[in-house]
């Protein structure tokens, strides 16, 4: 399958992040078109396109928009989830740094469609470069009359606020993000009510991922048929894949959904010399790992689900034979422990407990009983925690045990570093493969 640069098509133009640069490639044509249409038509278009959320869950975007009650007299809000923090996910930040106007144009069109007059772009605080590029795009759009009152004479008014987070993975969970954006601790909210009914400031709110919104101008500009020519029936369109790990050319590869990992690997130059795939993860540490036998599966929501994992953020991490699964899983759990918000017992206590046990394995001090204990502890979190972060924390260990239980067994007597010389995994000189 061929690569299909759409969002990334003009990233080699160094002026793309400016208004003029973006416009020189047809930018903001979609906005002009949208503003001449009706909000309901735009919602229908996005619904028909079959676009699914690119943040990980894959919820149909148009359907999400249609949940917002119309003519309810309340203010509506669009909130862009730009809190990309999932280990392995690294595609929204590049989009914002390279093509911020695609996001801004998408924000304006989406706000118009859901009848929001104020949109917020919540960007994780640890990436000032993404924040300044998006803020600059917003500023230029405002100066050009694309944000503000009576946009392009349409009568539509919109304010866009760029907002920096302050270090909390949990704020990628949409209701935690809302609490954070309201100036509270970023802990998830009880649902119902769902954000579409009572979100930001208890008003109807749509929360979409950066890449999702960046798709909107292209769909509106080029149409449903164009969009649907990519991908599959259930996973239409294209995807900004970010391939990382022991590949020759890690980076951004935009391709239709349905491309296989093997194809992406080829585009990325294959594995580094002398190296082969040991395990890979299609979309962030929260989805179960796969092995070389899965390399020919199409990267779609449905095929990944069938393989017992998820497409997630669509940012494959590829690890070669030098990597200790025990160490990789332990590191992920340390992350979940660090990022647990503390609200619910299973996640707060479970990540603390599991991490402690995994660290024993990493040092070669685990026991076979503890392998079972870990399995049941993960079972005590999965489906019992308050939000998906808990489920995510319960994913790496069972996922790894499915294919690599021997490594954990070995870790009852031999440390991860003894099993796998860490230096061999390094990608800079000094690495010995």
């Amino acid at each position: 399958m061929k690569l299909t640069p759409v969002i990334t098509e003009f990233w080699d133009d160094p002026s793309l992040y400016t208004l003029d640069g973006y416009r020189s490639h047809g930018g903001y044509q979609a906005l002009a078109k949208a503003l001449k249409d009706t909000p309901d038509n735009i919602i229908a278009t996005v619904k028909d396109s079959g676009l699914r959320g690119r943040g990980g869950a894959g919820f149909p975007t148009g359907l999400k928009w249609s949940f917002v009650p119309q003519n309810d007299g309340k203010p509506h809000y669009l909130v862009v989830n730009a809190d990309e923090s999932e280990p392995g996910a690294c595609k929204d930040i590049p989009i914002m740094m390279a093509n911020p106007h695609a996001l801004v144009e998408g924000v304006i069109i989406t706000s118009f469609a859901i009848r929001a007059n104020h949109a917020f772009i919540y960007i994780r605080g640890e990436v000032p470069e993404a924040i300044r590029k998006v803020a600059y795009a917003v500023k230029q759009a405002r100066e050009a009359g694309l944000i503000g009152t009576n946009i392009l004479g349409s009568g539509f008014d919109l304010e866009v606020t760029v907002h920096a987070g302050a270090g909390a993975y949990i704020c990628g969970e949409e209701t935690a993000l809302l609490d954070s954006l309201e100036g509270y601790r970023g802990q998830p909210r009880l649902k119902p009510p769902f954000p579409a009914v009572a979100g930001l400031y208890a008003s109807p709110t749509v929360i979409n991922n950066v890449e999702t919104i960046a798709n909107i101008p292209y769909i509106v500009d080029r149409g449903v048929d164009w969009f649907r020519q990519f991908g599959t029936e259930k996973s239409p369109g294209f995807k900004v894949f970010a391939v990382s790990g022991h590949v020759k050319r890690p980076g951004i590869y935009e391709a239709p959904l349905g491309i296989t990992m093997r194809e992406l690997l080829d585009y990325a130059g294959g594995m580094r010399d002398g190296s082969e795939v040991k395990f890979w993860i299609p979309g962030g540490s929260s989805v179960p790992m796969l092995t070389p036998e899965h390399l020919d599966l199409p990267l779609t929501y449905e095929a990944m689900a069938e393989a017992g994992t998820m497409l997630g953020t669509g940012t494959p991490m590829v690890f070669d034979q030098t990597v200790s699964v025990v160490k990789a899983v332990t590191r992920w759990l340390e992350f979940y422990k660090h990022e647990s918000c503390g609200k619910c017992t299973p996640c707060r206590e479970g990540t603390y407990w599991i991490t402690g046990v995994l660290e024993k394995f990493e040092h070669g001090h685990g026991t076979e009983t503890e392998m079972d204990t870990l399995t049941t502890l993960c079972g005590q979190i999965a489906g019992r925690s308050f939000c998906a972060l808990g489920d995510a924390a319960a994913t790496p260990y069972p996922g790894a045990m499915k294919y690599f239980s021997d490594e954990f067994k070995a870790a009852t007597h031999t440390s991860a570093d003894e099993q796998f010389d860490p230096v061999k995994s390094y990608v800079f000189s000094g690495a010995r493969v």
Partner: protein
Amino acid sequence: MTITNDPQTSNAGVAPAVDLVNVVIDGVEMAVPKGTLVIRAAEQIGIEIPRFCDHPLLEPVAACRACLIEIDGVPKPQPACAQAVSDGMVIKTQHSSEVARVAQEGVMEFLLANHPLDCPICDKGGECPLQNQAMSVGRPESRFEGEKRTFPKPININAQILLDRERCVSCARCTRFADQIAGDPSLELLERGAKQQVGTADDQPFDSYFSGNTIQICPVGALTSASYRFRARPFDLVSVPTTCEHCASGCSLRTDYRRGVVTRRLAWDDPEVNEEWNCDKGRFAFAYQSNGRVELPLVRENGELRPASWPEAMSVAAAGLEAAGSSTGVLVGGRATVEDAYAYSKFARTVLNTDNIDFRARALSLEESQFLAAEVAGRTLHTTYRNIEQAPAALLIAFEPEDESPIVFLRLRKAAEAGTKVHTLSPVYSLGSEKLAANWISVKAGTEAQALSNLDAAVRDSLSQPGAVVVVGERAASVPGLLSSVSRLAESTGAKIAWIPRRAGERGALEMGAIAGLLPGGRPISDSDARAQIATVWNVDADSLPHAGLSGAELISAISRGSIKAVVTAGVQPSDMPQGAELIEALNTADFVVALDNHHSDITERAHVVFPVAVVTEKAGTFMDWEGRSKPFAAAFRDALTLSDAGVLAMLASAMDSSLSGDTNTLRKEIASIPTWNGGRADIPTTNAESVDAGPTLATWRLLLDSGLMQEDEPHLAATARPSVVLISENDHVALGTPAFIAVSGPSGSITLPAEVGMVADGSVWLPMNSPGSHIYTQLGAGMGEAVTVAATTGGAA
């Protein structure tokens, strides 16, 4: 009249129709109102689902996950505390679902992983929801072998509450209580994840009058009180249901004692009154019960009080009172139980043959007597907590609920959160007003009556809505014409009046006729039918009943003049009264003073005979809350030998060849036999407002935690009191040259305190009425609304 309540009487109006839905819980079919939470529905059929974060009076958070249950057709177990039932829902708890059982066991194992095994030294041990639920739904043994999370041992979150962080299960009940119920979000969850902990801002304590409730709702031993910590094991305590004696809010309490000493008090459940809360004064202030007591009868001999036998003291007292004939009076104080107040009322009328009686040991007026007779007396449960909660609007007049009736404050806050518009007519926009998001009708102290007569149309309209309430405090008596205006306002808008005195005994004493001019049940003493009815109950000749006598202030003047020769007092402190100095002088020269008291005071020092009387733990009784709701209680210490006031009066009556029962049950029956009064009532008062001085006037009220006698010997509680300051408006502060200290002066002297700029009406200056360094009657000689002078000073205490 009845002093036990029919619970229905408070539910004025018809219960609204409820939509019922059918659900099945563990195979039991039941119908519950739509929207009921699964955990509550299960309780109705006796199924207890484990819980920590759940509390019926707090918003659900579903944080602890202890209550996971299975619902048919739902793939994941759901939290019963946040899941509302829907029609046809089939619910399986741990009793019938392996999924639920395993889920609950898993959560419990996680909760215990980091929980210390210090139950043997933990205050909560023996009454601990974590301990209990670990036994009922937990695994027999922990698999956790790691290092338990520890924190440096305990930290004070305020002067009276300590926090052991490693015991905390992050249920957030305490922080949610602080925010949702008390409106004091100064206790918060800090940090996150495994490090998440309860705490406050640096060097800022959890500042709340209701802080003690957090100890009680903590489902583990994380929050403990400085005064109770390590003092007792719950299973060594005897628990007795009681009623709080501190104010007219009428809280149900549980008093726990061991070996004859009260160790702690807890809020007890009364959904119509205090729900499940109480204030810190009610919870912590009880040391006075054991300390500084009058222990023996005393008689004065050669100018000195000496212990005497009961018979001797009785005969001295009887002789002294008989010598005075009907030239006597009775000052009841505001803390008597209903039964004791009734005994004083009857003792005055039938033994002393006088109507000179008053329960108001505070600023009072004849206008107030008339107001109470016209609007309040004989109308128990006329206006209730429920009315306040459901009111579309409430106007507070001379009433600071957070300080003067804290449970009313909580109910007003609940109402305000749900949409009730609260207005407050006051010279000061207090912290409490802020928490009620009240509309401030700013008024110079002393001009409240005029302001009330000139309310703007919007406020008036809001009070004209059906169900609106006018809440008026006892301080209204200080401002001539104010209570008359209240009556007129209620009449013209249709708003209900809630009169809310501070002290626990006032409403009961009013109903029992412990006030000149009124016989029990709100009967005018001038009314012949009223006299006849009471004479029948009392088994006396109606003609023998006295005619309208002197109320408090008049009575004190009469004692001063010598026209009243003898006086019986009960728990009165002169410093509480504007006429306090006059009273002390008068008692110095009075022929004969009999004091019934449990503590020594300026009055016992001057009495000719002092009788020790019981405190609330030593007697049965009833407090009638401000609503007129009777809250009976039994003696905590059933073997106590101390006599109640009624018991002493009965002996005294006997010594005076009269008869009066002192037995609580007999008195209760007698009170119950008094018919409801349907006869004439006093007219509403029509006192004119008085113009006030152009200069500064005094705004004042008693802070909840202050120098009150019954708060003595509780240093941890006292340390949480609000500091004594002079509150002044910014304009007035600037006019004085923005001094750090201000001296406020009145006829008797001055008070100097740190100046604090607040939301105060220009021309008014606020002082606490009875706090350390600020006792307005003794130090200033000026009361609420009266002229004072204000000056900048360089500092230092007065």
